[in-house]
């Protein structure tokens, strides 16, 4: 159990540092920066008590916002993602009850994992750009930014999760 907590603390710190020091400065094609910090929501253990995910996501978002001077944009986005994680997971798996203790995201079939990551990433990036532009007349920029950033975020977090997490048998 303590190993699980330790692993999550390390993941928390690494995600913040990688996001603000590396991925905020990639500027692919001039402006695309993947939001890898949402992997926190994908990888957080699925438990009956869901409040801990909300609270930790909130602090992760606040840290990212502090570093990138974005007010509360990323906090609002990651909270929304965290809140809708379980409903979307249930939707992707097409069942309501699963074993909370033994559940591991890597035991999902790859296409289901990809779908799960994609839906949550789209949700997060859409909220980020909606709040960043804060103006419905910029809806074109909001949608194009959401799609481009999502694609790169999905690719990076999908392969990152495949590479850096172990499959439990």
């Amino acid at each position, binding site marked *: 159990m303590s190993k699980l907590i330790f692993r999550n603390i390390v993941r928390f710190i690494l995600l913040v540092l990688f996001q603000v020091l590396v991925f905020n400065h990639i500027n692919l094609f001039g402006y695309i920066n993947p939001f890898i910090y949402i992997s926190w929501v994908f990888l957080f253990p699925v438990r009956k008590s869901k409040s801990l995910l909300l609270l930790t996501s909130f602090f992760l978002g606040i840290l990212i916002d502090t*570093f990138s*001077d974005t007010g509360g*944009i990323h906090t609002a986005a990651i909270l929304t993602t965290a809140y809708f994680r379980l409903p979307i997971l249930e939707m992707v798996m097409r069942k309501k009850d699963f074993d909370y203790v033994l559940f591991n995201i890597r035991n999902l079939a790859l296409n289901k994992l990809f779908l799960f990551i994609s839906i949550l990433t789209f949700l997060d990036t859409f909220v980020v750009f909606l709040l960043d532009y804060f103006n419905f007349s910029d809806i074109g920029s909001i949608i194009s930014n959401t799609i481009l950033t999502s694609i790169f975020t999905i690719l990076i977090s999908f392969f990152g999760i495949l590479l850096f997490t172990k499959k439990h048998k």
Partner: protein
Amino acid sequence: MQQLFYFIQKFRYFLLFLVLEIIALTLTIKNHSYQQSKFINSANFISGGIYNQVSSISDFLNLKSENKRLSEENIRLKNWIEENKQIDINKISTHIDTSKYHQKYQYISAKIINNNYSKRNNFLTLNKGAKQNLKIDLGVINNKGVIGVIKNISKNYATVLSILNSNSRINVRLKKSFHYGTLVWNGKDYNVAQITDIPRQAIIKVGDTIITGGKSAIFPEGINIGVIKDFKFEKNQYKEINISLFNDMSALSYVQVIINYQKNEQKALEQNNLYE
């Protein structure tokens, strides 16, 4: 009462989400208004310190371009001195009335330790703060042009509202005529900014230089900004005047912060006008 507790018990997950989301949205709205939130910005000692460490490592990568920029600036200043010497020779005598002499501006060198240019609302972080006499609302430039205005400071760090931000409004004018406008940014290309409020009687051409207007107390007059890239003239109004900036906003390192010693005097005088 019991029902209230039951309600909270039943919806506590949703209520927690709602409370946290409202906090986040409040911070967002605060950040969109002119005054940035006091705590959630990168001028604090943790994020400022980390950015400072990282930038001290990555500095080596742009030493070459930084040297080139400095030598360009040296040449410009030396030429300027030589030009002024010529005028001095023609004068028969010079005397400086020290009682009338006031230094208006002072420049402080600082370094950008965190640069953003790809978002809609960009902020930069400087490695100097209140300890080095920086204050809120000071202008930030480098030798190529305007960069932004200081928005928040802590002891050792400061955040700068970049000209690449939807809240940035900088008073500018045409170099060749005294027609004033406002520099804004539409969020599309970090090399291209826009000018609004140019009066229709102004004659502009593609390639005209745009400089700061000096109407506000933040920037002195005549700092370079960019040249007109293209514009539209519709219904007797100028529309979408695009400016290609002299500064490459994606590669900034050392900058100068401008302290205006007569700012309070100017502000106080302008305030008086409002109340009359």
